[in-house]
Structures are given as structure tokens and as C-alpha cells.
């Protein structure tokens, strides 16, 4: 069980998720899409955290009794949920004012 799947597989999946998320966040015109990209990036980071915990902290004995990686992941999930809620509320509010969810329209802070 131990050596069945090597660590780098997880890291690969995580990198793919993060890359997808990053691309989405930077390229989507729809603000909802940007939010979704951010969620993907967070989930990629979660996978990394859990994988490193399982493959490095537990075998070395440092984290056997601890649940560091999992707690980290749960914290990030909770945070992501809160962030999504706030982000969606912002988007709705902006939409009500400007009838648009396109990020390039949200440029009133331009210097």
C-alpha cells in the first residue's frame, strides 16, 4: 500500500489542477469563472498539503499523532467556501449596479 502510488503522481495532479485554475483565473472574462479558477488553485494546493503530509511527515514520525496536513486542507476548504460566498456576493452586487459580470468592466479603480 505504501509504495503503490508514488508521491509525484499526486504532485502532478495537484500541479495540473493549479495550472488549470491559474489559467482560468487569469483568462476568464466572466467573474464567476475567475472565482472557479481560484477554487481550483486552492484545491491543487490542498492536494499538495495532504500528499506531502502523508508521504513525508507521517513516515518520518513527526506527524503520526498529528493531523497537520488534513487540518490544513480542511481549513483551506472552509476558507475557500467563505471566499466563494464573499466573492459571489460581490459579483451579485456589482451586477445589480452595472448589469455585467465581465471583469474587464470592473475597472473603476484605474489610476
Amino acid at each position, binding site marked *: 500500500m505504501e509504495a503503490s502510488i508514488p508521491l509525484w503522481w499526486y504532485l502532478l495532479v495537484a500541479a495540473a489542477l493549479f495550472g488549470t485554475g491559474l489559467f482560468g483565473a487569469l483568462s476568464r472574462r466572466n467573474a464567476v469563472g475567475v472565482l472557479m479558477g481560484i477554487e481550483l488553485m486552492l484545491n491543487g494546493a490542498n492536494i499538495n498539503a495532504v500528499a506531502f503530509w502523508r508521504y513525508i511527515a507521517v513516515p518520518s514520525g513527526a506527524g503520526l499523532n498529528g493531523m497537520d496536513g488534513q487540518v490544513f486542507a480542511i481549513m483551506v476548504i472552509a476558507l475557500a467556501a467563505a471566499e466563494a460566498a464573499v466573492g459571489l456576493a460581490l459579483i451579485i452586487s456589482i451586477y445589480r449596479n452595472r448589469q455585467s459580470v465581465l471583469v474587464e468592466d470592473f*475597472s473603476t479603480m484605474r489610476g
Partner: protein
Amino acid sequence: MLDLAALAANAWLVPLFTALAFVIILVQIWTGRGGRGSAYTAIAGVAASGAYSVVLFLASLGGSAAELSRSPAMSRTMDWLPLGDGYLRFGILVDPLGAATAAMVGIACLMIFIYSSSYMGAEFERYTDPTSGEVDRALGRARYARFFAYVSLFATGMFGFVLASNLVQALLFWEIMGLCSFLLIGFWNFKPSAAQAAKKAFMTTRIGDMGLFIGIMMLFAFLGTTDYASLMRPESLARLQAIGPIDGWLSGMLGYEVYIPLGGVSVAALVALCLFGGSIGKSAQFPLHVWLPDAMEGPTPVSAMIHAATMVSAGVFLIARLYPVFASATVDHPDQISGAMYAVAAIGALTALLAATIGMAQYDIKRVLAFSTISQLGYMVMALGIGAYVAAVFHLLTHAFFKALLFLGSGSVIHGVEHGMHEGHSHGGGQDAGAGHHDRQSGIPGVAAADAHDPQDMRNMGGLAKRMPLTYVTFLAGTLALTGVPVFSGFWSKDEILSDAFHKMGDGHMIALVVWVLGTTAAFVTAFYMARQVFMVFAGPPSTDAAAHAPESAPAMVYPLVVLSVFAILLGLIGVPAAFPVLGPLLGGNPFHHYMGHLLSGGAFETHAFNALPALASVGAAATGWGLGYALYGRRPAAARSRDPLASVIGAPLFRLLNRKYYIDEIYDATFIRGSVAFAKLNAWFDRRAVDGAVNGASWLGSRGASVNGWIDSRIVDGTVTLVAMVSSELSRWMRWLQTGRVQQYLLLAFVGVLIFLAMNVL
């Protein structure tokens, strides 16, 4: 029996009543209700005050005069101003001097108020606006009320002064009187001469008041108190005397020897002379007498009340009140006439004669009386100067009544002549309007001719005895009292002064000889000018239509004259010398003497044997004066009114000198007034050139300095600030392109930044 202690303790009510009347009249004026009611208010106020003071006086007669003058229960004081370690106290002091004077003031003021209600009423029924010439009844009523406000305030001042318990308080009321005098002399303020006279009176008395103020300050500095009761204590006076002469005192203060002119005069004498300065101003004594004749510009009741009966005697009262200070103002011989008193006596005697001689050559009916007042005040002052304290106070009281009577009588005459002028105009409608109104030459070079429209010029009168019988009889009573005709009040008081002087002379005092000679001469001159006045005004045929048509005055004016003439005739009987043949013992051996004499050194006041010589001399002087007056004016009064026979007797130049009052006004005008104007001009020049120059120079310098500062400010300080602003502005302009407002660009930048950091970390 009246409780004297309680009465005296509540004597503060006396000035309060008139003060209340003053306030009520002010309210009446403000609410537009001034008028007849104001006169009644004022009369009620002064009647209450007068009644209280008369009752107080009568109660004080009850054998307790000694108690009255010494017992502290007779005065009531309260703390007023905190001063250092003590209080300046405000209170009431009732002693024989104060009680008697307050009673006199009360009666005289009441009569004058009643008189004024009619006299001033006639003035203002047809008050015409001086600029538009229209009759303004509302303003006339308001001015009528204002008159009574002023006189009520004046009465408050006089009562307060007479009953004050310390010098500062006395000064306060003294100045209230000065203010009222100013306001009332200038009451007809649309007349430039009245405004001028008011100013003159105010400023002249101010010179004397400065002396009084300095004197009070010195007393306070040396003795630490201004309370009469404390000042009069023998130990206080001894302390004042112990200071010694001025140069010694100054040397002691400064720590080195000083020599000043008259440095040998004692400090006590200096204090006394400063205080006497106040009296000189207020009582119009010689160098400062010039304001009183001009004060006749005021309404006649004012002349009677303020400038004859009451206020001007305040100066005499002040000396009498502070008599122990004056008497002790010597270093060597406390029992003798002190140095300060020599000066007082000399000034008084000089004034008495000087003013009397001027009075001989005046034509204005009121001015004659004004100079007579100055002269009589001189009598009182010289009496105090030779230590004839009781005689001076006695003369103060009798003079107040007969002089008020004479002034009111003259007011009645003026009123009658004024009416006569209106009558004459209405009667003479069809005839030549100028008939009887031609100006008659005086016949004396340098002496003004009679103005036919001047109701006060005696040359326009004559024959009024028949037209105004009551005025005539009462005026005659006042004249007989003033000229010292036996049995009338003025005889007793004036004779007492002269006989006291005669006795002091016997004790070897040279000054008493001067006083007696000048006083007796002045008595002769007084009789002469009063005879002249009576004959010119009342005798013979009238010289103008106005005099021929003059009616008797209203009852409200005539009856006060009658009341006052009773006093003028009978008041002297309270002071008949005990040793006077027949009358003396009959009238209780000079009760006034016993009453008033207690004030002095434990009641040990000398009474001397009756000597017929001074009495005969003064009666002889009066008789000669009357005789000469009759010879010159009584036999052919009409001729005397067109060319003054006195001028023929003494020569026109001398007459002119007297008529022009020895040119004292002109001398003052040429020296003090022109001098101060020139000095003021010099100051103005100095101010314009030097002071203004310095100020302008300073401002020029300031403006130069400011422009340098401005250059620094605008170039260097502002430059620095602008530079900082420009740099940040350029920087921010350059940074602006980063701030696109596109959230994804920010994200991309952040990502690139992370990558750069990572790369730097790896490398």
C-alpha cells in the same frame, strides 16, 4: 421722645429718598411719562429726606450733642472695599455739624424744588426747538422731567456728602454734586454760553478736586484710614504732626538729604493745603472763583440751590469737617493758628473783599448775587482760618437761607421781566415795535451797553416794587440779612465772625487783624452793592416796557420765598452771643454755640466777653454802605440805570476794572488757556513729526523686512514644497500605468512576481 440713636443709625435713608426720586424720574423719562409728575416725585423725595433730616436735627438738640459728636453708636458703617489688611468703610456719620447742615439742605432744597416746579414749568410750556424754532411740547416735558432728575441726584449728593462717614465716600458724593452742577449749568445746552460755562465750572473745580484727592491719598498713606472718626482722634493727629517738615520726611524716605523750596512746611500742613485745594475749587475761592459767575448760565433755581445755598458751601463744610486736621497742621505750636490755617484765612479774606468789589460794578442781577456768594463763602473760609469754627458754620447755615432767598427772588424778577417782554410785544402791536426796547449806552467806555432783550440786566428793570410786592418784600428781607443789618440772621453770623477775628487780634494774631479789616471792609462793600441792586431793580420808575408790565410770579414761586425769608430773618436768633446785651440771655445764651462747639476738643470752646467795637464797626460799615448806595442809586434810580454813578465817583477806568472782574478771566485766558492750547499745539506738532515719524519709520522698516521675508518665503520655502510636490507628481504619473483597474492583470503581476522570487531563490 425721639430716639436719637435709632434715628442716626438709619440716617442713610436721607440720601436714599432723593436717590429713589431720581431713579423714578429716570424711569418716567424713559417710558415717556416725564412731566408734572416728575416734579411731584422730586418734591416728595426731597420732602421725605428733608423731613427726616429736620427730625434728626431736632432730636439731636435734645441735650445730647456731646453724645452725638463722640459716641460711635451715632455712626453706622459697613465694609465697602477691601483694602490691604482692612476695609474701606461706607457709612453714615451724624454729628452736630452734619445734622444741622443736612437740615438746612433739606429745607432749602424743598423750597427750591417747589419753586422750580413752577419756574421751570413756565420755561418748558413753550419750549421751542432751537434749530427748527417749533414748539415741541413732548421734548419740553422731557426736559422739565430731566431737570428734576438732575436736582434730585444733586440733593442725594449733598445729603450723602454731609452725612458721609469717611473721606472717600465724601469724595464720591462730592463728585456727584460736581457732575450735577455741570449738567445743570449746561442745562440749556443749546446756548453756547451755557455749554461753555458748564465746561468751565467742571474743569476749574477739577483742579481743586485734584488737590483734595491728593490730600485724601496722603492722609490714607500716613494714617491708613480715611474715616473721619479715626482721623480726628488726637493720636492720629499727633502721628501726622510727628512726621515733621517735608524735606526731613523726603530725606528719610530717600535716604539722603534733600532741599526743596518751602521744605520747612510740615507734611501735616501740606495735607491740609491739598484738602483746602478741594474747598477752593468747590467754594469758588480766589484763584479758582472764576467758574461761579459763569455758572449763572444755568436756570435760576439751580443757581439758588447749587451755586449759592448748598454745593458751594460743601467746600466750607469740608474744612469744618476736617477742622482738627487743619488746626493741627503745624509743628511747633499746636495751640496757635496753624500755618495751613494762615493760608486758609488769607485766601478767604482776600476772596471776601475781591468778590465784593467786583459785585459793585456788575449789571446782571444774578452775577451780582454770584459775586456776593463768593464773597460770603470767603467770609466762612476766613472764619475757619482764624479758628472761628462755630461762627463759620453759623454763617454757612444763615447764608444758605438768605442767599437761596435772594436767588429765588432774582429768578422771580427775571421771570416777571420776561413775561413783561412778551406782554409788551403783544400790547405794542400797532405802535413802533421797538418802543422802549432801544439799547441804552452804558456811558462808560469799555463797559457793555444794556441789551434791551436781556431780562437779567438790572438796567432794564426798575419800579418792580409795585409790580411784584411779595417778591420785593422777601428780596428786601434777604438783602437786609446779607448786608448784616441788626436782628436779621446775617448780622448775627457775620458779626460773630468779625468779633472772633477781633478777639484773635487781641491775642496777637496778625492774620486776624487782616481778616477783621478786610471782613469789615467787605461788609461795607456788600451793603453798597446790595443797596445798588435793590434800588436799580425795585425803585423808581421802570426803565423799560418789560419792567412796566412785569407781573407777580405764581404762588408756587412766591410762597417758598416767604418761607425762606422767615428763616432769613429769624434763624440768626439761635446764635445770638450769650454776652449780647438783653437779647443774649433772653435767647438762651447762644444755644447754637453750645450745640456746635462740642465738636472741638472735648467741648472746651472758649466764649469771650461781648465787645461792642466789632459789632458797632460792622453795623457802621453796613450803614455806610446802605447810605452810600442810597445816595448814589436811591435818589434818582432812573438816571443811575442809564449811567452808573459809581463810575463817576471812582472813575471810569476803575469801574471798568471792577466790571471786567479785574480781568482775571482775561489773564487766565492769556496764560493758562492760551498756554495750554500752545502746549497742546506743540504736542500735536511733536506728535505729528516725531511720534508719527517714528511710527512711520518703524512701519517702513517693517514693510522692508517683510518684503525680504516674503521673497524668502515665496522662493525658498515655497520652492522646496513645490519641488517635493513635483517629484511625487512625476513619480505617480509614471506609476499610473500599473494601476489599470483590471483585477486579472494584478493577479498576473502577482504571479509573475512570485515566479521572479522563486527564480531568484533557485538561482
